[in-house]
């Protein structure tokens, strides 16, 4: 009886301790990450995606570049990047106009991280790729067409 009570007490206080640690931010379940922007990733058109990102109608800017080849040998892996010389860039995103959902990826850049991010995306077909950049509280954009070819057998 006594033993059992002690076990309950022990495990009880253990759970309480865990809760306190979690509340104090000393331990976190899994990894602490920002909330995934479901609305933006679920949006289909460019306009809806920009709206969900809070970007409105961004102005075209020569200080934003979409990097990548003109031709991709396979749409499953297309190397693309975003670079910008604009000041105070806090966010960049890659949008693919003709994909089922335009938004491929977005990046929050803390101070000290350069506005120069590269990744690889899937493209269902030849399409314009848009680079969206947030500089200060304004959004800017640039575009580049990447052609997706049907390959041969792929040596």
């Amino acid at each position, binding site marked *: 009886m006594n033993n059992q009570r002690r076990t309950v007490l022990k495990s009880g206080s253990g759970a309480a301790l865990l809760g306190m640690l979690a509340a104090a931010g000393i331990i976190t379940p*899994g990894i602490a*990450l920002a909330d995934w922007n479901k609305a933006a990733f679920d949006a289909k058109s460019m306009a809806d995606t920009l709206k969900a990102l809070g970007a409105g109608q961004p102005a075209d800017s020569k200080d934003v570049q979409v990097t990548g080849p003109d031709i991709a040998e396979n749409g499953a892996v297309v190397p693309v990047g975003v670079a910008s010389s604009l000041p105070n860039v806090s966010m960049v995103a890659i949008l693919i106009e003709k994909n089922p959902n335009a938004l491929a*990826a977005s990046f*929050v850049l803390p101070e000290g991280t350069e506005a120069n991010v590269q990744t690889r995306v899937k493209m269902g077909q030849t399409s314009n790729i848009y680079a969206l950049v947030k500089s200060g509280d304004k959004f800017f954009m640039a575009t580049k067409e990447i052609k997706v070819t049907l390959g041969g057998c792929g040596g």
Partner: protein
Amino acid sequence: MGNPMKIRAANKDGVTEVKVLVSHEMETGQRKDSAGAIVPAWFITELVAKHGDKTVLNCEFGPSVSKNPYLAFKFKGGAKGEKVIVSWKDNKGDSRTDEAAIG
């Protein structure tokens, strides 16, 4: 848990360049298997890179990021031997963290 990531970090002239390769299927949820059934979406949704305690990049991915995602970026600072830590989680709740020393 997935397989380990490959993280490379190199400092040059005060700027650290980080290159990350992640092992992940990145299923779009639009592909059908040989029986004609839709293969459910399975993709990394969030990825965070830290230099020590400081977050240096916060990414959100959709399913159109390629299988085995690749990422390259640069941040100011970082010294040889210091750690870059990368964590991801996917839409099934799986997650993984790996780290590498800046070279």
